[in-house]
């Protein structure tokens, strides 16, 4: 088995055993440290030993009994949900328009709208803080939603554009020839078929907002602090074991989202 050639250039599996070992280690490095948090979150000790000497739900109780943590969680999910709605709507519209138009300006527009992905988040955060200060949007749900939406728009646009490229535009044309106006043809023919791409984009928008730290750090104070902001501040000061419990919950949520997105992609 090991002596069989593994490549077209007749390198055997044995000869590149080192490659398999290295890749195994890299995957281990990518996955395991994060997952170790899960068993540790059930430890009874303040120092989160592994494997835990005694198991308990102590840190989960701490989380669910803390009004601050729950409040922050509620804010995060509200913002993520609203961001998902706004970013998916605006991003999908823009992706469709820019895909359909042949104007030269569409390329500049595409670059402009993907800028938030390129500019360092700390700069976006400072800029947004400055913009929100005079209009009182700092530390509000609406402000957070707007800020997170600009981060999510490029991702929605990328996934929707990919979906549009796989869509047969003749279908929209035939619908229009049968009497459907362009918006109606989009709603009844195009949108149902790029649905999976749009939903993938929506999932990304949600998770981007939920995980965002830096902008929240600068603009989400007081009772509008997001979960990630609270976690960051708690971690900077001391390692609060409650965070292990929250992290486990967040990992479970990520796995759920990743699974959903994989299902959507396999159905494309």
């Amino acid at each position, binding site marked *: 088995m090991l002596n069989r050639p593994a490549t077209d250039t007749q390198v055997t599996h044995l000869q590149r055993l080192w490659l398999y070992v290295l890749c195994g280690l890299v995957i281990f490095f990518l996955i395991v440290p994060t997952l170790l948090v899960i068993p540790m979150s059930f430890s009874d000790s303040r120092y989160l030993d592994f494997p835990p000497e005694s198991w308990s739900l102590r840190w989960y109780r701490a989380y669910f009994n803390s009004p601050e943590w729950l409040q922050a969680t509620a804010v995060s999910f509200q913002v993520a949900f609203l961001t998902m709605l706004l970013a998916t709507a605006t991003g999908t519209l823009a992706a469709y328009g820019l895909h359909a138009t042949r104007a030269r300006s569409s390329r500049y527009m595409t670059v402009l709208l993907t800028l938030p992905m390129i500019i360092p988040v700390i700069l976006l955060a400072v800029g947004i803080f400055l913009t929100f200060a005079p209009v009182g949007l700092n530390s509000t749900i609406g402000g957070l939603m707007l800020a997170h939406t600009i981060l999510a728009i490029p991702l929605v646009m990328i996934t929707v554009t990919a979906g549009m490229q796989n869509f*047969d535009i003749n279908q929209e*044309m035939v619908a229009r020839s*049968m*009497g*459907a106006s362009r918006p109606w043809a989009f709603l009844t023919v195009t949108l149902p078929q790029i649905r999976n791409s749009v939903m993938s984009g929506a999932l990304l928008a949600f998770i981007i907002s939920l995980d965002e730290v830096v902008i929240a750090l600068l603009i989400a104070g007081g009772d509008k602090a997001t979960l990630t902001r609270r976690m960051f501040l708690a971690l900077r000061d001391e390692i609060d074991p409650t965070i292990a419990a929250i992290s486990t919950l967040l990992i479970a949520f990520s796995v759920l989202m990743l699974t959903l997105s994989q299902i959507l992609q396999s159905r494309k």
Partner: protein
Amino acid sequence: MNDVTKTTGPANAGPDEAGPQGRDHALPISVRSLTKTYGAFHALNDVSIDIRNGEFMTLLGPSGSGKTTLLMVLAGFVRPDNGSVKFGEREILLLPPHKRDIGMVFQNYALFPHMTVADNLAYPLKLRRVGKAEIRERVERALDLVQLGGLGDRGIEALSGGQRQRVALARAVIFEPRILLMDEPLSALDKNLREQMQFEVRALHDRLGITTVYVTHDQREALTMSDRIAVINEGRIQQVDPPRKLYERPETFFVASFIGETYRLPVEVADGKASLFGQPVRTDSPLGSNAARQTLILRPEMLHIDEGAPEADENQMTGTLRQSVFQGDSIVSYITIHGDHEIAVRSQHRSDRSLPEPGSEVRLSWLVQDTVILPGDGRT
């Protein structure tokens, strides 16, 4: 092909339908000086054409000739630089596609995969706010018309290529459009099915009497199906004529060579009379040009090898037989005319006739009425 005629009644037999040839429902199309450029490329170059009420008009040309562009202008998906398109008396060039009332069939059918066959057919009817019961009835009738009765609940994925083609066709006519546009609708089908569908599409057209514009690059398909054919090349209309006239009386070298097989021989014209290597060549109509150098267009099947002098209605030329090839039912003779023009003539095998020896002189005759002479040397 007989089963086409078995189906009863047109799909859109509303009370206002004027029998099998609903010509008053159909509309003529009048196109004037359409021009469309992409940068320096002329997709359409001053195109004008009249399509009659209820006519089956085919736009024939090689790929990139502009035929699809012209169709897309009619449909409203390509906006020309200038020109005019009228459906009947009405200028429609400035109307959006959904207000033109046209049925359209695309090369890849463009059926909606997220809907059933019946929902695909109902789509244009729902847009027109037709009642539910009537939709059901009309969908059923349309399915019967294209011999897909009972398949309404199927998904598109479950259909064969031919069935998809029929659904696309039914969907394009179910809402009684006044004009039907088809963009190479049969090119994705295999040969047998394609030939069968050619008859079905034509039969459907005859039953509905709808003005039809059909795009293809397949000359045989065009000759089989059309009332008239418009040959397009490099964004220009070359000739618009019924299939037979187009074949027998090509007006340009492009039309002559694009449709069927041709030989070209140089003729000299003086005083309105043409001569081929010194021999007079007669035509049944006056020459279109007085240019001295012109070209005789001959089709191989119009030529026959003659023993004696030409008949009164024939032209004749002499050549040297290079070789004869016996092919069972026929004999192909390769004949050299005036040193450097080679012509292959197929003649029927007859046991009572012997083959001329290679090297011997033979006479080739063709009818005066088949004689086509075009100005120029034929190099395009």
